[in-house]
């Protein structure tokens, strides 16, 4: 690499690192990655910036020497395109690495990055959430993840709100529909669920339903999975708007739609709630 190329690459590295630091500092990173990965963004961003700054300041490798008997006018065994003298040595690195030049790299990385940062809403649209399983029935495979469970276990492990409703995790209510024994325990149970609101598209001919959901991730939003529970509102009840973050209290039941058992929360009351730092739930 010539010193100019090294400096340009260094500047590009600084801009990549700055993007990471920006997402970390602005806390927007919480909308993209699991909390466990946030410190990687910070460390990675700082590291890339240090590398970039160092390369801008020191663009030329030091002490690049050749053996005395090394004939620099030889033909390389790979296609260099030309031979060079010892004086040209500062740029001989390019004979080993024929990567793209800095302008191509800058163009092909900064354009998509800038466009993505301009167009992102830091969340998925309803269409995107649907692809991640917002309206999918619970998988029977995952139902078995719930250990053998009794009503006594429930009383011991799950706290209650002021109305005596179990503050159940969304994923528990969701996957309960896949296991008959769990259903028997949960059916008719006073429950409070916390999550984000979306329109309901299943079994909602009368329009009295909405959906509450949580997103579960392991690493980043690319592996995001959405679990949701249908909410049925009594006539005249105040309804939240889509995108609201709420606590929904009511009675958990199960219904069969097209041969599939689905959880349904019959609403007592829905109240606005404070959004958590990250709305993602980590897989264990």
């Amino acid at each position, binding site marked *: *690499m010539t010193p100019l190329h090294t400096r340009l*690459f*260094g500047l590009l*590295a600084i801009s990549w690192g700055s993007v*990471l630091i920006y997402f970390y500092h602005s806390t927007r990173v919480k909308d*993209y*990655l699991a909390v466990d*990965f946030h410190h*990687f*963004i910070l460390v*990675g*961003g700082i*590291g*890339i910036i240090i*590398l*970039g700054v160092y*390369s801008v300041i*020191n663009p030329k*490798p*030091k*002490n*690049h*020497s*050749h053996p005395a008997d090394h004939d620099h006018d030889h033909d390389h*065994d790979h296609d260099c395109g030309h031979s060079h003298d010892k004086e040209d040595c500062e740029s001989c690195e390019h004979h*080993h*690495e*024929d*990567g793209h030049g800095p302008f*191509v*790299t800058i163009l*092909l*990385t900064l354009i*998509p*990055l800038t*466009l*993505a940062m301009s*167009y*992102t*809403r830091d969340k998925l649209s*309803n*269409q*995107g959430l649907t*692809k991640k*399983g917002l*309206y999918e029935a619970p*998988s*029977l*495979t*995952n139902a*078995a*993840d719930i250990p053998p469970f009794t009503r006594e276990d429930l009383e011991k492990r799950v706290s209650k709100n002021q109305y005596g409703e179990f503050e159940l995790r969304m994923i528990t209510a969701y996957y309960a529909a896949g296991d*008959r024994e*769990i259903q028997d325990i949960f059916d008719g149970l006073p429950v409070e669920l916390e999550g984000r609101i979306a329109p309901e598209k299943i079994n909602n001919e009368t329009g009295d339903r909405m959906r509450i959901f949580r997103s579960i991730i*392991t690493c*980043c*939003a*690319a*592996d995001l*999975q959405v679990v949701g529970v249908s909410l049925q509102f009594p006539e005249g009840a105040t309804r939240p708007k889509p995108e609201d973050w709420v606590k929904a209290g009511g009675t958990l039941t199960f219904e069969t739609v097209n041969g599939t058992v689905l959880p349904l929360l019959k609403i007592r009351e829905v109240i606005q709630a404070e959004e958590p730092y990250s709305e993602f739930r980590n897989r264990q």
Partner: protein
Amino acid sequence: MTDQTKDQLADGSYEFLSIFLEGLPFIFLGTLVSGFLGTYLPRGAFEKILPKNNTLAILLSGLLGAIFPVCECAVVPVIRRLVKNGLPVSCALAYMLAAPIFNPVTAISTYKAFNNSYEITISRLTIGYLIAVIIALIAARIAQYFILKESAKADEGHEHNHPRNLNSALNNSLRDLMDVGLYFCIGVVLTAILKTTVIDPTDEFWKNLADNSILGSAGMMILAFVLSLCSTSDAFIAANFANFKYGPKLAFMVFGPMMDAKLVFLYSTVFKWKFIAFLFVAIFILTGAFSLLFEMKILPWWMTSQSEIPLAP
């Protein structure tokens, strides 16, 4: 622009940024390691470390992920530099393909995702290792000329006294970061486009493939290619495809970490496009075959017991 197009653009941007933000620190880590290896690792070091027998060397290289666990994004710059420093390309391939699967983090996540099933965990690790070794053994019989890009070949016959200092190591790291970062970025753009405009995992098309093990495995491998998930998280997604049997799920978890949309571009920093095409076909066929053997319970019992999920009646 319609609302649907706006949503797709926003979702694509979101997918792009999530993979970019997650992957870039690991690629940086990989290039930092590669830069220092390229500077400080003496030429010929591998000849001293690796067994003289090439087959034995490949078998051992495939196991290195258990000691040096590394994700599929970070492994590419590392093996790129190791090959330049004289590591046989067959050994590099065995490590590169096996390490994202044959490592403790992936093993634990698979075990947890599949209801503490050691059968599918062992099957995944074993099949991943076997495929990596088989492909590496084939590659050992192919001339490097057909495999490696000119820039990735070892610098034999062109022995400079490259300085062994921090400056040189960081210069190498920057060069690697730029090369790999560029192709990573292109790969992530392609992944984001495919995920938001072409593939919908909840579509009935995919669910209908579940009844046929051959089509199911092929479909799940294509899905894994497009989704470009990390090997540490893909088991949770695979487990969620309730309609599919274990064979196709296994195909999803073995194929994805070895070959996905973003990896194709990362691989292109090391390998020729023709060899990448060969890799795709070979991994596809071998993964499909092994997952079918698993499905038919032809593999050893401890890999194929496929314990039933204890559902209530």
